[in-house]
């Protein structure tokens, strides 16, 4: 059970408080971008490229302009006049807003049609005639560096190949030495395929430029509204749109999952059009556009190696990544980390030697890479290490749970320095795995498996014991386009003791309106119910870096506690003044200060706040509000122990997930109900890439499954019944001991599922399968091993 310091009426930390935001959503009163209607609002639709790589010979807009309702058609040439045809990416690369001469991926934006209705805009989009000269697309990243392959980025002066960057961490020489001397070395080539977040709400915006006041209001689906305001000012400052004249509003967002961090061309075109036309312009993409053109996730090809002893002591790992970034590097990473935090790939295990390296290449595909609950490439890192741990256990014939127990970093060894440079804050991995094994009944399952195998039945047990790294991050190392990755909270308590609090993050369903209120309730004793939380309006909320990579609790959650503590200090001063005692004579319990030894001498927080407006000590500033910008000293390192049990139909390759137990450790829990909901959703977004989802391209660069007809988002039928639980190892450096958790389940679960399936198939000599592991893939693997029908 989770201990609570506050009463249910206050609902501080640990209470499963029902969500404040639900009341509008369950009645259809949410306020999402496409719900916005402004006077004179026009609609934008986008003509997109049918080719992955082609020269644009001509764009004929004459027929489109004749379509009733069409007001304007914008091409790259129009934007070029304002130097808005290209924009910077988060990784300081450049991305086309609209092309002037070449298209680089199928579904790329080519022209924008603006009309009085969305139907007219669609008619206009169909009437734009574009003449292309198709070229041989570069699709296979392994061919990107071939001298025979075309150099895609001819716009970059002096660029003679498709290499984007090389990055590495760890000790290469030491790792090579350990590998050359190790008794056991295992190696697999794996692909973490390209997938897509596919939040149920697609991306969109309403750009509202007011010519009279030279002011832009941009309502948009963004997870990082302040950063985008700054980016817009950097891109459009030269036409007079400086930062104080831009207001970005991120209203209710229908899911983000990382897909709503980047700046997409559609947003910039809408701003440009609103600026030129002087009217509000709405752009809402449809699902196909979202899947085909917006930020993808993953697409890492990993050569993974593990060295160890015959007895099962891990000695070293080596991971070599080939990253397919599409035609530009628009991955949403902190600027110093082009491969994100992939170097967490040494995982939960205590060994001293590792080397990771990555090379990124351009291909004729849309940009992206960092999205879908990846915590900056941690999904890829965890998949690599957890797959290889099982691979190693299989090689030496050791139980994979025992092998993990024998190699875990011990509870007492934290803070622990990893061979690639991270300092893990805290963890109790043995307790987590033991709990998962107890819940699932591990020993009995292994016995059952032996019996099943004797009968020729396929049953597999897969484990993933992962370490996450979330809460980017310390200003020393972490920035987005130079802006340090702090976050913020601003709390203002009204005279009657009710509060408004604003944050630099932006919920997309994670429940911030409820949980931030709970943090403040914990610190001040004001009921969470009476704390109104707001995010997403850059005019009113304090500057923050946004919500992604599970950073809200580690950063803005910390800021909330620190700001509330500033207020508690003020309340203490007022209490001392009112009770006529020294501050040292006062004791706090949530909601009141009382005199030590005389609990009848008491002032409630409500009385103290009222006094801050009506009767405060001489020299004290009136009012009761505080702000804090929190620069985290380190990231938080939540962890988890997941166990999956699968049964496989030998005839069809059909995979049934019989059990899935997920034990998460995210330190102190703010709201168990919400944490569990995040885990359920994240596990479903783990089974999705593990078994169903993949964006598939053919050799010409055509996307083969760019709609929900064949991009298989799981329904309630495919989603297993999740069994969830927790252990609590607080983060020692976080003000409330909390760690992020939102992405843990998506990071941790795919390797558990893959390990379970491969465990089931291992008697036939199958040592690895790439995700998504579909029935066809299983059937094919069995057939190749001569095991089908046996």
């Amino acid at each position, binding site marked *: 059970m989770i201990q609570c310091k506050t009463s249910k009426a206050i609902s501080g930390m640990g209470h499963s408080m029902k969500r404040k935001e639900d*009341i509008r959503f369950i009645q*259809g009163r949410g306020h999402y971008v496409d719900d916005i209607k402004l006077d004179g609002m026009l609609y934008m639709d986008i003509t997109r490229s049918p080719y992955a790589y082609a020269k644009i010979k001509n764009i004929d807009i004459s027929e489109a302009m004749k379509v009733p309702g069409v007001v304007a058609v914008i091409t790259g040439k129009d934007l070029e006049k304002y130097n808005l045809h290209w924009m910077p990416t988060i990784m300081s690369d450049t991305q086309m807003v609209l092309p002037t001469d070449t298209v680089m991926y199928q579904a790329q934006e080519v022209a924008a049609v603006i009309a009085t209705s969305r139907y007219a805009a669609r008619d206009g989009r169909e009437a734009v005639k574009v003449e292309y000269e198709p070229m041989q697309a570069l699709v296979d990243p392994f061919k990107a560096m071939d001298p025979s392959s075309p150099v895609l980025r001819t716009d970059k002066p002096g660029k003679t190949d498709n290499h984007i960057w090389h990055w590495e961490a760890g000790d290469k020489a030491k790792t090579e030495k350990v590998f050359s001397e190790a008794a056991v070395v295992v190696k697999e080539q794996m692909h973490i395929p390209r997938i897509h977040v596919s939040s*149920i709400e697609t991306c969109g915006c309403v750009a509202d430029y007011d010519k009279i006041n030279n002011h832009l209001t941009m309502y948009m689906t963004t997870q990082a509204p302040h950063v985008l305001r700054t980016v817009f000012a950097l891109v459009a400052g030269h036409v007079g749109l400086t930062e104080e004249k831009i207001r970005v509003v991120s209203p209710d967002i*229908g899911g983000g999952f990382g897909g709503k961090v980047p700046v997409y061309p559609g947003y910039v075109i809408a701003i440009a059009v609103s600026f030129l036309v002087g009217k509000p312009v709405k752009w809402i993409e449809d699902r*196909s556009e979202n899947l085909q053109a917006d930020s993808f996730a993953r697409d890492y090809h990993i050569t993974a190696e593990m060295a160890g002893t015959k007895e099962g002591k891990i000695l070293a790992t080596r991971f070599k990544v080939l990253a397919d970034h599409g035609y530009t590097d628009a991955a949403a990473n902190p600027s110093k980390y082009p491969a994100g935090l992939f170097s967490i790939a040494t995982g939960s295990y205590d060994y001293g030697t590792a080397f990771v390296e990555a090379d990124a290449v351009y291909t004729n595909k849309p940009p992206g890479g960092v999205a879908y609950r990846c915590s900056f490439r941690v999904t890829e890192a965890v998949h690599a290490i957890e797959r290889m741990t099982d691979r190693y256990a299989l090689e030496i014939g050791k139980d994979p749970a025992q092998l993990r127990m024998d190699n875990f970093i011990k509870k007492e060894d934290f803070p622990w320095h990893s061979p690639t440079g991270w300092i893990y804050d805290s963890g109790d991995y043995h307790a987590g795995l033991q709990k998962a094994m107890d819940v699932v009944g591990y020993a009995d399952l292994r016995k059952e498996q032996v019996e099943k195998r004797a009968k020729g039945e396929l049953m597999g047990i897969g484990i993933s014991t992962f370490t996450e790294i979330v809460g980017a991050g310390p200003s020393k190392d972490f920035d987005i386009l130079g802006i340090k990755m702090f976050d913020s909270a601003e709390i203002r308590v009204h005279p009657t003791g009710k509060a408004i609090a604003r944050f630099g993050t932006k919920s997309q369903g*994670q429940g911030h309106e409820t949980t931030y209120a709970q943090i403040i309730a914990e610190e001040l004793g004001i009921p969470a119910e009476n704390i109104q939380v707001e995010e997403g309006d850059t005019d009113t909320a304090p500057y923050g870096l946004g919500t992604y990579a599970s950073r809200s609790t580690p950063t803005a959650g910390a800021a909330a506690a620190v700001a509330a503590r500033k207020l508690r200090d003020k309340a203490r001063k007022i209490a001392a003044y009112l009770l006529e005692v020294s501050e040292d004579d006062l004791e706090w319990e949530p909601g009141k200060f009382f005199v030590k030894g005389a609990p009848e001498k008491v002032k409630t927080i409500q009385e103290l706040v009222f006094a801050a407006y009506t009767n405060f000590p001489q020299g004290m500033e009136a009012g009761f509000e505080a702000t804090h910008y929190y620069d985290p000293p380190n990231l938080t390192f939540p962890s988890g122990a997941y166990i999956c049990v699968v049964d496989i139909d030998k005839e069809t390759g059909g995979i049934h997930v019989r059990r899935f137990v997920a034990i998460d450790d995210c330190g102190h829990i703010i709201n168990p109900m919400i944490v569990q*909901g995040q885990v359920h959703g994240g596990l479903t977004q783990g089974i999705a890439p593990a078994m169903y989802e993949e964006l598939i391209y053919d050799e010409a660069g055509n996307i083969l499954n760019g709609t929900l007809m064949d991009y298989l*988002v799981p329904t309630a039928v495919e989603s297993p019944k999740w069994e*969830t639980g*927790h252990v609590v190892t607080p983060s020692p450096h976080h003000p409330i001991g909390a760690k992020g958790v939102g992405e843990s389940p998506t990071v941790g679960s795919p390797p558990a599922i893959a390990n379970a399936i491969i465990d089931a198939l291992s008697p036939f000599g199958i040592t690895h399968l790439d995700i998504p592991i579909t029935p066809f893939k299983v059937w094919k693997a069995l057939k190749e091993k001569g095991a089908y029908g046996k």
Partner: protein
Amino acid sequence: MEITLKVNEVQHTLDVEPRTLLVHLIRENLNLTGTHIGCDTTTCGACTILLDGKSVKSCTILAVQANGKSVRTIESVAGADGHLHPLQEGFKDNHGLHCGFCTPGMIMRSIELLENNPNPTEEEIRWGISGNLCRCTGYNNIVKAIEYASAKNRGVEPASTEPQFV
């Protein structure tokens, strides 16, 4: 062309293009923006409404096809006095929503599901909402929410809404 339809018990006469999708009529002409659009292939069910009592995906029906018919959207589900429907209560109490984008469609679908099958099994619920995608919840709590409403509708005390978080 001119059509007449009843939406949430209010009669409307509207002039619409024959190609106008019902979902757009609901959202744009009537400003009932609780009904959402999540795809373009009739897959996600975020646009689910009740048409003459049947749950339908309003993105896949022309507005003119609703001529003379009765539409119910999420905005009509709570009582006029603000009293929540058992499904709305179930979704809130069981944390059956996060971002809220699929929620209106889920609830509209579930209304018909429970009318046809007042006491469904878990499997029947899962199959019953398989036309509605959710990206946030992983469905488990949606199942609980529907079970909660089913119990309430039948006058049975619903199971605990406390999270089973061991």
